């Protein structure tokens, strides 16, 4: 009856069914009573109303019974939840990093992947972190969800029980492309997992500093490095290229240089590249002089 997708399905779904069952029971009984009273005691029937005295015993009953029911609901809800915070010692540790607007997964040995591949029947601990704003890490099929909070580590864990692909959603609103912040968990056998791990390349230990700044500020989410158009123009070959921009409503052609790049970062609304909507990019005023220089240097090399 319960799916085996993860070890939490049973606890969550049984709490869900019990609470929903009791709720539907009350909804049906109370609605039926209302309809019954409206028909039975309708004024059209011509019977005068009877004034009925309050009954202490009755009132105490209907305070006590709901109180017991809700305490029970609290208990099953808590019982279903506790295991989510108790991570087994032998769990495989993977870090999920949220940034505007994608998930990235870091495997032991400093390896990076876009898809979260995990072996079946093993406990997986996911360390959650965010580099910019709040994000949510939600896997509905596994019944797990925790927020990714900048500078405040959080975690989630699970043991997957069925092979297959499962959706990951970002559930905490994080700006423009929040609804595109999706990911996939792929549950595979241990052999496949081991094989897959070998195909992962190591994260460049020292990616150029300019690149690090771009990553940290989430620039890459909208500006690709490979020439493809995402939200904004690609960075590939940007330096020295010519482009049409609109400046306070009038179009002109410019050549991309240091001054133009810096201005586009701190005041993106001043010159808007024709064909892209104005106002989408926020001004990044907190970048330091040296950061801006590093970005410029990095972009120069991006042919």
């Amino acid at each position: 009856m319960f799916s085996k997708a993860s070890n939490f399905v049973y606890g969550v779904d049984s709490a869900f069914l019990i609470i929903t069952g009791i709720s539907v029971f009350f909804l049906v009984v109370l609605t039926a009573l209302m309809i019954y009273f409206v028909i039975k005691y309708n004024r059209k029937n011509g019977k005068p109303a009877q004034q009925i005295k309050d009954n202490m015993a009755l009132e105490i009953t209907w305070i006590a019974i709901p109180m017991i029911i809700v305490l029970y609901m609290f208990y099953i809800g808590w019982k279903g939840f506790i295991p989510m915070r108790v991570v087994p010692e032998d769990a495989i540790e993977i870090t999920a990093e949220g940034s505007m607007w994608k998930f990235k997964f870091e495997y032991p040995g400093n390896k990076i992947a876009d898809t979260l591949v995990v072996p079946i029947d093993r406990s997986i601990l996911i360390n959650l972190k965010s580099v910019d704003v709040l994000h949510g890490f939600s896997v509905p099929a596994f019944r797990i969800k925790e927020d990714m909070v900048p500078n405040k580590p959080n975690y989630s864990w699970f043991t997957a029980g069925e092979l297959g692909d499962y959706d990951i959603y970002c559930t905490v609103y994080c700006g423009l492309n929040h609804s595109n912040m999706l990911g996939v968990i792929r549950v595979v056998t241990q052999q496949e997992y081991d094989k897959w791990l070998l195909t992962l390349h190591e994260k460049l230990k020292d990616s150029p500093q300019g690149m690090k700044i771009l990553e940290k500020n989430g620039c890459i989410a909208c500006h690709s490095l490979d020439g493809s158009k995402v939200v904004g123009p690609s960075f590939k070959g940007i330096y020295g290229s010519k482009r049409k921009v609109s400046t306070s409503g009038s179009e002109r052609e410019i050549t991309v240089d240091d001054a133009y790049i810096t201005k586009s970062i701190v005041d993106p609304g001043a010159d808007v590249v024709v064909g892209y909507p104005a106002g989408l990019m926020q001004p990044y005023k907190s970048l330091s002089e040296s950061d801006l220089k590093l970005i410029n240097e990095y972009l120069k090399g991006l042919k």
Partner: protein
Amino acid sequence: MSNVSANSEYVSYLDHHGKYKGIMSWIMATDHKRIALLYMYSIMTFFIIGVVLGIMMKLEMLTPGETIMKAKMYNSVFTLHGILMIFMVVIPGLSAVFGNFFLPIHIGAKDVSFPKLNRFSWWIFVVGSIMAVLSQVLKDGPPDTGWTFYAPYSTTTSSNVIMATAAAFVLGFSSILTGLNFIVTIHQLRAPGMKFFNMPLFPWALYATAWIQLLATPVIGITLLMLIAERAFHIGFFDPALGGDPLLFQHLFWIYSHPAVYVMMLPAMGVITEIIPTFCQRQIYGYKAVAVSSLAIAGVGFLVWGHHMYTSGMSDTARWFFSLLTFIVAVPSAIKVFNWITTMYKGSIDVKPPFLYALAFIFLFIIGGTTGLLLGSVATNVQVHDTAFVVAHFHYIIFGGMGFAFFAAIHYWLPKMYGRMYDFKMANIGLVINFIGFNLLYFPQFVIGIQGMPRRYFDYPAKFQPAQLVSSIGGFILVTGLIIMIYTLVKGARKGAPAPANPWRGSTLEWQIPSPPSVENFDEEPVIKENPYDYK
């Protein structure tokens, strides 16, 4: 018409313009009844704009990907929709409109304690609303943070967050001052012979509400000021990049915004508690339990805010503590439902539009309330938090609950406020369409929410489309019903047949005076009954 209105001194508050003429006689009015109407017209305007924004979102949701607008616009639309509906419609809603109009009358008073302060509260409300409009048109573009303004997104986005939060800050003062005014009024101006436990239950609900407004609203004020300071001067309260803590913002925000849910709901429950006895001609069952449960909800409601943050990374102790209290605060609400339904037992039930709206309210409120249990329980919360399930839940509570209570109230009191009656048949047609449309619009959201569809999503996987389609169709049906309802009410208020003083055989004081009431409400000393719901 009633015997009192034959009195030669009687001048309806609608005709008596005092020192000023024309529109100024409204803007400068201190009469609680005129101020109530001013609030009603402004709030109805914002409600209609909010509904239009809601329908735009439903159009966008018809198909995955872009349908009628881009992501950027969708994000500002749900933000504005939330800000309007929460800060400018449901929070002031019942207490500023029907509270202003009927609180003094219910306790046998001529006005509130501070009529000029009351007028000032409405002015502040207007200023705050204008600021909210400005936030949409100023240079940096409409805010796109959601009405919750979560940091650090809200401290870094380039849109007009400062203006929008400043608007909410100003609107808060209107709420605080109204609360203060009501508390003092209830303490000072009850007619001779009316003790607390002789008051009708609507003033009781307003009393509990007013305390929340007074005590909780300053918290959001401070929070929004901190946010503004952070944006303007880079003082690091919330943004970790500046050394702040984003969870601090969430705590502060919900310390206000959860109690604010009861600012919406308690007066709604109060309205239903007035309507049911009248149409059943039966004294309310469990008067004291209903009165005290309002205070209990207000009190415990201060301590449950953390149920909005189970997955935020707060400590496990906090998680169970908030869950436990959340379940406990559900009980007084359940008690009210039992009392309402028991009041129907052996009554003489007159099935008129206000009563039907009250029944619809109870049904929708049970769904809203019991789905709240699923959100309060930690294990199930993890599954449905921040999904369409939450969107469905809070629309069932605030629209199905507070909104339908507002509709019930206006169908109940319109003859008193305008001295005219609307068409019952049209009102019933509007009601049925509203009810069907509402459930079609929001019920599917529970289903896809359980399947994982996150909220505030401009785009969605194709598997959710059938439910989104049903939901959008429901939206169009609901709007049709709303149009019929508003048309019927406006027509009734302007051209309806003159209403008698007591069309529903109500027993509270507003039904003992002419429709519409005179300027001073009571031209003769009101007779205070020991039991406000005495139908013998």
